[in-house]
């Protein structure tokens, strides 16, 4: 159990900055997921915590101790790698017990602890096998066992589920969650998969372009995205985003082609904004219904439990997620309706969130 404090951490490769000053606090025992697209610096940040990557600027402290200059082994972290990084020439038992062997733990105690970990992970019958002879899910479990046996203060996960097939991924996801509940060690989990992030996280850190965009619980991030990037990155299908201008009686959207009546906002008339609306918050109504936007149906994706309807709104793509059994024909016209409070406003220049209905004065962009 340990807290992690990250202050002004930067990373440059040669002259290229990849992480531009990150400040984060992870509480003891928390499960934090760092979410972001590839190349956003999330893995680099994790590797800096682990000690596999030098910290160019700023400090990282584990339990109040600055670890910038400490070797990986002195930091009390264990890591699960994306490709598992199992030692191919060692058996499962040797893989799991390697850290104890290095630490000079006597072989009797070592065997006992390997057994204990193997029992938790249901690996007991595989202890003599080589990693080559294991399936993806089993390898994944061995990698977890190797991290667990050290009883680390901090668990680091670097996209550990991305090499598994969809079914196994869901299963391992819940196993990781259970494991965390059981060990309650501080865990940092890096992923680009937002479903994984939403389901695992106590707290979510969304990163983009080497910066932190938002920190919050999954529900917070989903319902009040702090920026346009977060709004479109979190949630599937992605949030619809329409360019608009504030008018006296509401909004004009898509280069004045559509009008939308909304309550008075605190925004200046003529301000450029991006208006976001989640596909789940849109209702399809008969075309011509008062206040509804008319759109042409492009494509329907059947998902079993529901369906996603892709429509064309004067050239702008727009999607609707619905669980109703409506089957509009491609090419037909539908009306789109949504509640005012489901609209998200973002500054057209900075991409930051504008809380227009909450207060008359917009919050400064994050």
């Amino acid at each position, binding site marked *: 159990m340990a807290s992690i404090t990250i202050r002004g951490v930067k990373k440059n490769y040669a002259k290229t900055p990849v992480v531009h000053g990150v400040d984060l606090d992870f509480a003891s025992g928390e499960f934090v997921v760092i979410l972001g697209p590839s190349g956003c610096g999330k893995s680099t940040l994790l590797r800096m915590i*682990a*000690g*596999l990557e030098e910290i160019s600027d700023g400090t990282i402290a584990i339990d109040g101790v600055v670890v910038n200059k400490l*070797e*990986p*082994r002195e930091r009390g*972290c*264990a*890591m699960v*790698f*994306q*490709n598992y*990084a*199992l*030692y*191919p*020439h060692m058996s499962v038992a040797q893989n799991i017990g*390697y*850290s104890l062997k*290095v*630490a000079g733990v006597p072989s009797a105690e070592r065997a006992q602890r390997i057994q204990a970990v193997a029992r938790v992970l249901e690996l007991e019958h595989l202890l003599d096998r080589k990693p*080559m002879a294991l399936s993806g899910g089993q390898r994944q479990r061995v990698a977890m066992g*190797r991290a667990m046996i*050290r009883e680390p203060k901090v668990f680091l996960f670097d996209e550990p589920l991305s090499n598994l097939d969809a079914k196994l991924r869901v299963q391992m996801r819940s196993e990781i969650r259970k494991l965390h509940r059981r060990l309650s060690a501080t865990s940092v989990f890096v992923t680009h998969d937002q479903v994984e992030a939403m389901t695992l996280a106590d707290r979510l850190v969304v990163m983009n372009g080497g910066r932190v965009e938002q920190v919050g619980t999954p529900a917070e991030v989903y319902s009040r995205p702090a920026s346009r990037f977060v709004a479109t990155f979190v949630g599937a299908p992605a949030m619809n985003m329409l360019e608009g201008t504030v008018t006296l009686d509401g909004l004009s959207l898509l280069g004045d082609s559509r009008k939308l009546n909304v309550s008075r906002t605190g925004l200046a008339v003529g301000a450029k904004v991006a208006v976001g609306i989640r596909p789940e918050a849109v209702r399809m109504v008969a075309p011509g219904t008062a206040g509804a936007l008319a759109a042409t149906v492009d494509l329907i994706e059947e998902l079993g439990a529901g369906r996603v309807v892709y429509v064309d709104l004067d050239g702008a793509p727009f999607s609707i997620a619905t669980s109703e059994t409506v089957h509009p024909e491609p090419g037909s016209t539908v009306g789109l309706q949504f509640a005012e409070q489901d609209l998200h406003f973002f500054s057209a220049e900075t991409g930051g969130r504008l809380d227009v209905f909450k207060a008359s004065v917009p919050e400064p962009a994050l």
Partner: protein
Amino acid sequence: MEKRVTFGRWTIGILFAVPQLILIFTFFYWPAGQAVYWSLTLQQPWGGGNIWVGLDNFRSILSNADYWNSISASLVFAGISTGLAMSIALVLAALTDRQLAGSWLYRVVLIWPYGIAAPALALAFRFILAPEAGFMAVVNQVWPGVWDPGLDGSDAMASIIVAFSWKYVGYNFIFFLAAFQAIPRSLIEAAAMDGSGVIRRFWDIQFPLITPTIFFLLVINITESFQDSFGIVDIMTSGGPANATNLMVYKIYSDGFKGLDYSGAAAQSIILMLLIIALTIVQFRFIERRVHYR
């Protein structure tokens, strides 16, 4: 799925193989067969037929103390030069793999020695190790007479070992470096997370994972030390002093072409061939067991 080229008619396949088969037969099996034939006959030095003598050539060689001396010199040479060339290359490659400053330079520079013909490098080493004017002249200045490959057999052996190893360090280095670089970075990082230091990681992770390369180089180095040593011995010591560096491959040449004992030389080359085959079999039987293939 393995991709294979298939031919509708087997004749096309044979036609493709024929050029290679002709080459192998003409330059490998036919000369080897001739050597076997000669080794069982007595060749006239000035031509004019040969007499079948059975295994007499082998009996006379194997009862000759000089020949046994040559075998032991060859084994000493093979053992020490292989060990030296491989261990130096291993250390250099391990350091280069750690991306130390200037490692790109070694990578380029270290392959050059292998490109130099053995006689040329032998000549260079002859100058470098010359007792009266080379590097070692400094040693002789301090302790007169300590170093003289022209008089002292072990000095001469050391000279050819150094020259041969110098050539093969570069060759081995390239293979070792490739092997090190083929180890996924994350394995090393995982070991680091497991608390393993640089040296420990080398022995526990990197070394076992490059054993296929070590094994391959062991076979190649030993084989080459029996064969590729000819040019170096010829230029540096001519087998002397007092036969101390008269390696098997050099003795074949000197007995055959200087001593004009063609049949004896042919028998010696058969023995050398058998020795190399035996050593290779031993290596495959006993050392390969310890190799971890991924």
